[in-house]
């Protein structure tokens, strides 16, 4: 398992955002006055308040699922002989699987370990990245609103499948070897 202590509450990317935010806030204040500044500040705080219960729920779901997920079972469904159905199952599973990278990558690694092909693992990871509902609900929805999120997900629906097919095609075309090292 990866070291969890890596996730500090503050790191350099946070510092960059902090600097940009501070400069932007100052720009707004100087250019448009305190009324506009506080109006933006109030609506952002409201947005933040709306996110809190969803975020806490997301963290709890991720924690519970890491403990509960029957990894062997998932891996059995998407073995090397699973064909297009395997890609479909991998895409669907990753889209509904809550949790963060700490649940997704161990499962994808387990796929490879029990004989799933790299195409399936790629479809799985890609699906989590572009369709994962946990991230969409917890993070994306408060920023963008429902219409935009649903539209984006519809647009991205074919991508994991496509990535898996492309991966399989590349393995065949270049006779790549993709065994898991373990």
């Amino acid at each position, binding site marked *: 398992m990866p070291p969890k202590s890596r996730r500090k509450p503050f790191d350099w990317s946070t510092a960059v955002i902090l600097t940009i935010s501070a400069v932007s806030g100052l720009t707004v204040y100087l250019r448009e006055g305190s009324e506009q500044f506080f109006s933006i500040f109030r609506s952002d705080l409201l947005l933040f308040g709306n996110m809190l219960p969803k975020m806490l*729920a997301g963290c709890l779901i991720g924690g519970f699922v890491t403990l509960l997920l029957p990894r062997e079972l998932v891996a059995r469904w998407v073995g090397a002989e699973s064909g297009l159905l395997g890609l479909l199952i991998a895409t669907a599973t990753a889209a509904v699987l809550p949790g963060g990278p700490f649940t997704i990558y161990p499962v994808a690694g387990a796929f490879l370990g029990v004989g799933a092909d790299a195409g399936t693992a790629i479809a799985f990871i890609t699906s989590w990245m572009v369709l994962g509902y946990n991230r969409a609900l917890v993070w994306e929805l408060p920023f963008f609103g429902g219409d935009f999120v649903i539209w984006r997900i519809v647009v991205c629906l074919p991508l994991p499948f496509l990535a898996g097919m492309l991966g399989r095609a590349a393995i065949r075309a270049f006779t790549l070897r993709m065994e898991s090292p373990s």
Partner: protein
Amino acid sequence: MLAVNVFLWLVVAALGLMTAMRGTDLFRGSLRASTIEFLQQLPRIALGVVGSGFIADAMPQDLIVPWIGPQSGMLGVAIATLGGACTSGGPVVGFSIAAAALKAGGGAPQVIAYVTAWSLFSIQRLIGWEIPLMPPRVVLLRAAVSVPLPFLAAATAMLISKP
């Protein structure tokens, strides 16, 4: 918004119950670890949300619109894709920049390309999680086959215009 909260907390309750049935200590430990993670994320999220409003307002619109505005076409998509791939950081960073760009006049297909590219290539996730946990060859293959995806998403978004 309320429906989303109700749904999420029902899932939490169901999963929590399943965990508790496996053992109370397991349940308590998991509860503790998740809460600590939540608290660790708080300052970053507060900053991302509050900051994105100011960034959107301060962003020079006459710069955003020609580069990644609705009229910028596939070149705008390419610029947004490159920007997304170069953005490092967690969900707060990526989504707050994307939301700010959309508010400041970025085109929806271009913003989708940005979010997709950032989701697929975020360097921090690649180095922090994917490379340590997956065989490097698979990571490389995944990254290679993912290159066309932001463009495909944006092209589809242009065809199915936003409701």
